[in-house]
């Protein structure tokens, strides 16, 4: 028993453990402070919001900021439920089709040999670099020319073409043993059957990760800039629209940001171990 403990503590001094712990706590406070302040501010009644110096805690917590936020959303032409429906619909469509289309493409790139595979893969890897907003303007031109602007399609289709998500699933598939696939083949299964019955169950952490990442991306990107019709807008866009308008106050804005940050954080907390499992295969081997 003692021996095992010693092995675990190999090269670990108590002093080092404490330094690392307190160092992390210090930085952790900086990381968490803005999130904490959002929550505190969202719970403050007006008389506590405007005192000097501002408090880092709340004396009489109130839900008034939230109810006021809901009131403001309800007062617009479009009911809150419509924004919520839009967000859910786009998220579900993007995650479902994103996983199917991405995994279907990832399988041949991971496990099959076909003409042009290397060239296509190189191109895909190169564009991992452009996942930011760098091509936002030319993408907008393409979307406009295709007539996608101001439809649900403009929110869903680009999510399905994520190179990062396809890459993550492909990397995860690489570790499925070939014998497993060969066995299925000998049993007479076609490529689609192997994909559905062997590959997909074996990469469950990867496709769950991709679902979460897609959801976060849909949620955080919103619909600003590509959707003009009010009834088609997503909830985050509607909320930020209201809070940036002149009618809003600090408390209401904080309430909106609390509502916006909860779904992505909760989805990460729930799937953390699956996401780390997937990320373990994210390396690029040259």
């Amino acid at each position, binding site marked *: 028993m003692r021996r095992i403990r010693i092995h675990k503590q190999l090269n670990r001094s108590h002093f080092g453990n404490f330094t*690392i712990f307190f160092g992390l706590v210090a930085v952790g406070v900086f990381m968490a402070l803005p999130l904490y302040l959002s929550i505190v501010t969202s719970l403050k009644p007006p008389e506590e919001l405007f005192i000097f110096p501002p408090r880092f805690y709340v004396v009489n917590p109130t839900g008034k900021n939230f109810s006021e936020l809901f009131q403001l959303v309800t007062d617009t032409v479009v009911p809150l439920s419509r924004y919520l429906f839009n967000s859910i619909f786009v998220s579900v469509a993007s995650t479902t089709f994103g996983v199917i289309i991405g995994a279907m493409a990832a399988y041949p790139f991971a496990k099959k040999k076909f003409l042009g595979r290397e060239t296509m893969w190189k191109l895909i890897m190169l564009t991992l670099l452009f996942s930011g907003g*760098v*091509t936002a*303007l030319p*993408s907008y031109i393409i979307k406009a020319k295709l007539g996608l602007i101001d439809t649900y399609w403009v929110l869903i289709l680009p999510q399905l073409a994520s190179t990062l998500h396809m890459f993550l699933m492909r990397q995860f598939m690489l570790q499925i043993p070939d014998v497993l696939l060969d066995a299925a083949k000998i049993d007479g299964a076609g490529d689609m059957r192997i994909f559905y019955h062997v590959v997909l169950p074996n990469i469950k952490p990867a496709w769950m990760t991709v679902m979460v990442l897609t959801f*976060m991306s849909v949620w955080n990107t919103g619909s600003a800039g590509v959707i003009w019709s009010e009834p088609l807008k997503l909830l985050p866009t509607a909320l930020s629209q209201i809070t940036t308008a002149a009618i809003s106050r600090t408390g209401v804005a904080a309430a909106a*940001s609390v509502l916006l940050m909860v779904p992505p954080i909760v989805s990460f907390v729930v799937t953390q171990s699956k996401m780390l499992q997937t990320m*373990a295969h*994210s390396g690029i081997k*040259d």
Partner: protein
Amino acid sequence: MRVKRSFSQRLKDNGKRIKADRACYFMIAPFMLLFITFTVLPVAAAIGLSFTDFNMLQTPNFVGLDNYRTLFLNDDVFIIAVKNTLILAMVTGPLSYIACYVFAWFINELPGKLRAIMTVVFYAPSISGGVLTIWTYIFSGDRLGILNSFLVRFGFIDAPIQWLTDTDYMMTCCIIVQLWLSLGTSFLSFMAGFKTVDTTLYEAGAIDGVKNRFQEVWFLTLPQMKPQLLFGAVMQIASSFAVGAIPMQLTGFPSTDYATHTIIAHVQDYGSTRFELGYACAISTVLLLVMLLVNKVVNKVLVDN
């Protein structure tokens, strides 16, 4: 004769191979179609349109290198934008890359439950999109702004500072916020990388004279995590050069004296505000080329070491 035959033979062989692998092409087709439409085509369009005076309404005319000439010789704001982007990218890129690695390492030293909590604390900022509004409250220019009230109260300053409109402080504020939310995909990848390292290696290392955890990381862990390091580098370059949204939201658009005007902001200025799309595409193309170049250099450095 022989050359011709071998060529036609090759063509025939390729045709046969494609036919044999048709299931593969069928499976990648939907993705490739979307990938080409929304990733490849925009890059091609940016390059193509950068040589025209496209404005979305009229048919574009070919203008050669005019856009690029104006960009580098007559557009002072573009030069400012390039300078700002380089400052932001060169500071936040490497710093957050190192932060991702060091924090992933430290968090991995913690016991189970605590490790999971700390992972959430450090990763949360990068996924909680709406929280940016609280930063404008923290950096707010009046006495009620969190930072100002704190500094005034403890006597560091006499009068509130206009953090987000004073050109002396704007860049620093943007860098702080950018760093705060930059522990994203690379951080997760490194976290996972630390977990996969073979622990028997550490025992062997201890016998070979590795004395502490710093030596352990330097000699044993780093070389093992090269794939993750390469992936993280790509992710960091992608996000640090695409900087633009955060400065625009924090310090306004356009910002005071263009103090935090980035290349992305410049693209938006010409693309969405002035509708000089050909010119805006030239700006995008320059940014794409810079990113490709930096990626090449960083890759070379990482692979060689």
